[in-house]
């Protein structure tokens, strides 16, 4: 009997036989949090990772070759919001991994706390990513920094946090929303500028625009030297 769900080329990601949908293995089978579709195969439950709802999934669908997230990783997630992508990252790192979910808005942290009470590898933190010095005594060194905040100084926040918490040789994933930096300027120009800025500090290993899943967004993956 051939399995319907196969391993994707990326770690901890699974795909349907046709390759049009991607999944993560649910660490708490039988429980979904965001009405996402699930699939059962060979005794395991898989949750569908929707690229129109998550920028990380969009990046994978665009064919990224390395997203840097492995099992048992410690991850700093800036801009966790209600925790949609967060829950999939928590699937990917498994029960022994940890996701530090940071968000400054009380309203969304409320939802994240409920999620964290079910998934014990998510740590909700009501902090502002602009000020890493305020939460440096609340977290440990991390293997991956994932950032998805719609702020004007996105790259500044990213560089600050990577310098403070990312281990040497660790990966950083930055999703950029061009429209929150400047509505008038062309997204491509902006992306290139940010890329050059990041190249001064880190090694850029991947750069993709997220069309057609997200408009005027791109994602940059870096590796710390």
């Amino acid at each position: 009997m051939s399995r319907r769900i196969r391993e994707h080329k990326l770690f901890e990601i699974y795909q349907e036989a046709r390759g049009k949908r991607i999944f993560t293995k649910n660490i708490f089978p039988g429980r979904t949090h965001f009405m996402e579709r699930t699939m059962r195969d060979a005794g395991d439950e898989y949750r569908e990772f929707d690229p129109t709802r998550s920028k990380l999934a969009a990046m994978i669908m665009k064919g990224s070759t390395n997203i840097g997230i492995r099992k048992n990783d410690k991850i700093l997630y800036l801009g966790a919001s209600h925790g949609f992508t967060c829950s999939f990252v928590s699937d990917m790192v498994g029960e022994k991994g940890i996701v530090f979910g940071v968000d400054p808005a009380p309203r969304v942290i409320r939802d994240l706390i409920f999620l964290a009470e079910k998934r014990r590898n998510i740590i909700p933190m009501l902090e502002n990513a602009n000020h890493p010095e305020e939460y440096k005594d609340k977290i440990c060194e991390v293997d991956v920094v994932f950032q998805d905040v719609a702020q004007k100084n996105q790259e500044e926040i990213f560089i600050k946090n990577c310098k403070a918490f990312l281990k040497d040789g660790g990966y950083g994933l930055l999703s950029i929303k061009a429209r929150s930096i400047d509505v008038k300027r062309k997204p491509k120009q902006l992306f290139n500028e940010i890329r050059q800025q990041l190249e001064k500090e880190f090694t850029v290993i991947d750069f993709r625009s997220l069309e057609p899943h997200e408009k005027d967004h791109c994602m940059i993956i870096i590796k710390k030297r």
Partner: protein
Amino acid sequence: MYLYTNIIGSFVLNKELEIVESLEFEDIEDYLHKYQFENKLQQKHKNLQPLPDYKEREMLVLFKDDIYMEKFYKQNLELAKHKLKLSVTEDQLIIQTIANVQELDRVINLLSKRLREWYSLYYPELAENMTHHEKFAEMVATKTRKELLQGKTMGADLEEVHVKQMTLLAKQILGTFELQKQHKEYLKNVMEKYCPNVLELAGTTIGAKLLELSKSLKRLAMLPASTVQLLGAEKALFRHLKTGSRSPKYGAIFHHPIVQNAPRSDRGKAARLLADKLAICAKLDFFKGEFLAPEYKKLLEDKFNVKKD
């Protein structure tokens, strides 16, 4: 020897950054009073120094061990809950109340229209003559057709069972009116303490609406007067910027009596001046200034000859 404290506990470290002694926090209360633990350690070990900045990264590596993760989870979750508890302000209460007041407006309209249609089967003349929703509902709820009847009616003679449902609906509508009134009363009480200047100049509904649109008094105080003038007219403003159509003159403050009673040609001016004063009032309230709103109100009313009632 160094002293280092994080969310897990307070630690004494030697020069090689090994943990010599540790006091782990039981719950988040301990973290919030961490200086007590630090003092304890300081008395025990003499010559403790705070950890220099360049060594902090090494500490982060030290705490990466799996044994600390459960502790990190517990403490951070508690801290987030604690912060969430403190994050509720009057702003949010006001915003939720004014949002519900507006929602009730819509509900009342919807139900009243249905009641009119329904009751017209029984007594169409009343719905025709009585245009005020609240009075109409009150009449239907409290009086029978016999008491209301003037002359003859072309409505059907329905049995008591059928009429009863209409009366029940009317009572529900009256209850909704009462709820809305209580909301407004409550808003007034809250805003009197929280933002007296804005309340005095803008009134309950408009003042609360401005707070809702700007999300908090802090942001409202930081906004320039020109933005306050156009709060609530974002659609028209961006259409103006995008296509070059005529710019909007007022947003939420359009319903203010000063703007409403100004002559048509002066409405833009009135809105601008009112927004100026409102911006000052918001700043006065946020930074706990004096109560100057009545002065501004008088000035504006004199300028635009508003009739006082």
